[in-house]
């Protein structure tokens, strides 16, 4: 019954989405105010029914209703209840329902939190979002119904949730990621609404920026969580694999970052409108393309959902309509929106433009690397693989000029700045940023790693330059004139620097060892003594295995950690639960490999200095974005201004 209720709710949600698209649109053209202001009601209706459908599916999981095919494939009788909650989005159908649910949440948020946006414009935004929802709801109902029943396999334990997903990190990573991906639909909708309207709303950038920040924050945190989770769960100390699914989340993030910076120019200087629109369309388009890549079987990935070309075809058609339509609209109308003034070569505008050039080049590089095997195969030229070594060797050089620019751009004035005075201000800082890491590395380490030195120079350059800016502004304008947006920028840029430090040091000075150990054996790792103390059998709710105790000691300080090897009862899948002794400056990571004979194991040991700084940086970036979003200028309700600007309607 519950499953049928869920299915019916989805149909009703589709009905409301259709109403949302049709009625206010007719109202806009026929100037019927009632119909225009009905939009939030339809959006709320859609949200309620999608939420109900989601709750129904969750209920089916909690009740172990194995007559629902999706539940029996992703859950088991012995799965702990909190993992059953996660299992709702563990497979393709449920994760698509989560997608639609989160889209509806964002739509509701637009209804509730856009007091400053012009009513008619907001209606257009909601209509666009409604159209996107229709596409996804149709996809769900036609190809990916999570409520399909099955009656063949009733006396079963259930196939269980993939053990890799049975981890607390999994509670947070996908929903956060989806909040980000899906959240970019809002700036997308704002952009399409502007193009649809065909006129330039001067407050457009100010309306759009907080939504972009919200989505970007969620995506930043989602990616950070995913990376941290992979490091903990997967057992080989890696935190980024340039896997197609990871790239699918990274590309929207790169474009989202560019969008944020472009919006800054659009907001302050009313320039770069065309760029901003294009970036807003591209960010969401990449989210959609990412959805396609992961679910269609087109690419090989450890993350990919069950392969189904029919679903792939549906999404592809959807992509064609949504993205193709948006880009066509952009090509036809973008130039009508503003008069273009070329910025001076040495100014904040040009620095931000250059910043976006680098980010866009990085995104295109990642995109090309990800789809290249497909291109080659599609042309019949054979099978090729593009992996981590390729991405690292092309991505890193692109980041170097970007990081340099980060330290410079924040000091530049709008419109025009003076090269000599900037050079005088920043050159000593640059020299300092070069000398410090050089000194530190020479003194503290036994060999100088050039890559690490480069990373540290760039990171310190950003930190010192940012610090200098704070002092300068404080002296010039007073210490209480800093808005939240300014602090947000400082925090986020420092977060980037922290991530760069983490990557540089852990990659260059990390140590890895594969050893054969029996109980009682001792190994040394980077000055630490690692001793295998004991091994005990363990029995969990849905697994059995062995837990080992390791003692990590150095200079009298001792820590005990407990790596495990688990075999999940239902699927007989073996999993390594690695154990980490972590502090602010380094991780000692122990993972059990295979049992080699009766008494010994192959054990993998890692020493990873500063690795936590990578995710710490991600968290700082998230907090910076959050702070910027809460800046007071977005809270003011503004009446639409009668526009007598020179950048007016161009017809």
């Amino acid at each position: 019954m519950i499953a049928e209720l869920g299915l019916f709710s989805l149909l009703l949600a589709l009905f409301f989405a259709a109403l949302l698209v049709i009625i206010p649109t007719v109202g806009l053209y026929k100037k019927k105010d009632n119909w225009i202001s009905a939009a939030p009601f339809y959006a709320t209706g859609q949200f309620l029914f999608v939420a109900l459908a989601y709750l129904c599916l969750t209920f089916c999981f909690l009740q172990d209703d194995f007559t629902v095919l999706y539940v029996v494939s992703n859950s088991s009788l012995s799965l702990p209840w909190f993992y059953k909650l996660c299992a709702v989005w563990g497979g393709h159908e449920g994760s698509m329902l989560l997608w639609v649910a989160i889209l509806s949440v964002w739509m509701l948020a637009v209804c509730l939190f856009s007091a400053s946006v012009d009513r008619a414009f907001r209606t257009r935004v909601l209509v666009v979002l409604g159209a996107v929802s229709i596409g996804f709801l149709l996809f769900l109902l036609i190809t990916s119904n999570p409520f399909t029943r099955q009656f063949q396999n009733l006396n079963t334990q259930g196939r269980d949730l993939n053990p890799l997903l049975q981890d607390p990190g999994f509670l947070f990573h996908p929903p956060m990621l989806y909040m980000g991906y899906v959240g970019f639909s809002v700036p997308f909708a704002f952009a399409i609404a502007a193009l649809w309207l065909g006129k330039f709303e001067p407050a457009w950038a100010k309306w759009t920026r907080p939504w972009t920040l919200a989505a970007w924050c969620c995506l930043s945190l989602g990616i950070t969580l995913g990376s941290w989770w992979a490091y903990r769960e997967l057992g080989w100390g890696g935190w980024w694999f340039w896997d197609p699914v990871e790239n699918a989340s990274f590309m929207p993030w790169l474009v989202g970052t560019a969008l944020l910076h472009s919006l800054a120019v659009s907001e302050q200087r009313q320039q770069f409108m065309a760029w901003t629109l294009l970036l807003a369309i591209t960010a969401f388009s990449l989210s959609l393309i990412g959805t396609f890549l992961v679910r269609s079987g087109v690419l090989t990935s450890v993350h990919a959902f069950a392969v189904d070309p029919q679903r792939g075809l549906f999404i592809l058609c959807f992509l064609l309509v949504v993205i193709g339509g948006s880009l066509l609209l952009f090509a036809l109308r973008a130039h009508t929106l503003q008069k273009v003034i070329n910025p001076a070569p040495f100014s904040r505008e040009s620095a931000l433009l250059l910043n976006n050039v680098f980010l866009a080049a990085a995104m295109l590089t990642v995109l090309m690397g990800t789809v290249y095997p497909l291109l080659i195969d599609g042309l019949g030229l054979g099978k090729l693989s593009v992996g981590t070594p390729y991405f690292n060797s092309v991505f890193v050089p692109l980041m170097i000029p970007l990081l340099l620019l980060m330290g410079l751009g924040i000091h530049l004035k709008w419109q025009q700045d003076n090269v000599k005075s900037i050079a005088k201000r920043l050159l000593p800082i640059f020299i300092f940023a070069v000398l410090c890491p050089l000194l530190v590395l020479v003194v503290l380490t036994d060999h100088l790693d050039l890559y690490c030195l480069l990373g540290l120079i760039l990171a310190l350059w950003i930190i010192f330059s940012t610090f200098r800016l704070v002092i300068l502004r404080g002296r010039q304008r007073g210490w209480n004139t800093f808005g939240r947006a300014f602090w947000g920028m400082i925090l986020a840029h420092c977060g980037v620097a922290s991530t760069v430090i983490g990557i540089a040091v852990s990659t260059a000075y990390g140590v890895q060892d594969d050893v054969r150990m029996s109980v009682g054996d001792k190994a040394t790792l980077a000055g630490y003594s690692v001793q295998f103390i004991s091994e005990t059998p363990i029995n969990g709710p849905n697994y059995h295995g062995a837990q080992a105790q390791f003692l990590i000691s150095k200079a009298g300080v001792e820590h005990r950690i407990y790596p495990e090897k688990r075999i999940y009862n239902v699927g007989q899948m073996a999993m390594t639960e690695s154990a980490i002794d972590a502090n602010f400056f380094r991780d000692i990571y122990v993972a059990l490999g295979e049992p080699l004979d009766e008494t010994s194991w192959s054990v993998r040991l890692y020493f990873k200095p500063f690795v936590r700084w990578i995710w710490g940086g991600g968290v700082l970036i998230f907090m910076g974005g959050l702070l910027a979003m809460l800046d007071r200028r977005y809270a003011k309700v503004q009446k639409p201004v009668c526009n007598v600007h020179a950048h007016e309607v161009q017809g």
Partner: protein
Amino acid sequence: MKKRVWRLLPLMVFTLLVIFLWRGLSLEPQHLPSTQIGHSLPEFQLPQLGTEHVFSTQTVTGKVALLNVWASWCEACIEEQVFLMQLAQQGVLIYGLNYKDDTADATRWLKEWGNPYQAIGEDHRGKVAIDLGVYGAPETFLLDSHGIIRYRHVGILDAKSWQQEFLPRIRQLETA
């Protein structure tokens, strides 16, 4: 109108991408082509399952035949076994390469699921499989009478792939 061209660029790039993605739907990225096609079998000598004889390159050369890579730990091989039994009854020569398996387990498995093989070589260490470019089980190689590899099928051998991939090639080999 040069500006118009710039503005249409994103749309054009996107359309190109969509075309390739569409093509990609009908490809299978996980299946790798064999580099051994057209080459003769690598020389090998393995113990034969259930007898004192040796399973070598000579054993499988002489007539058009299949070399099927299987193991008792491979779940998909069970599905394939039904079809292979049918083929064996039709008179198709099938040789087995028991991949990284244990003799007792393999013997038990054959008793349970049937034995379509003329002879089975035991590749405990997987060395011969590496020489053949095997990367999983099950895989099936089509050999001609001179011991040259003509085709490699990855995954379960079913009626569809038999008709589409194997039969045409077998006919070609037998008429040649």
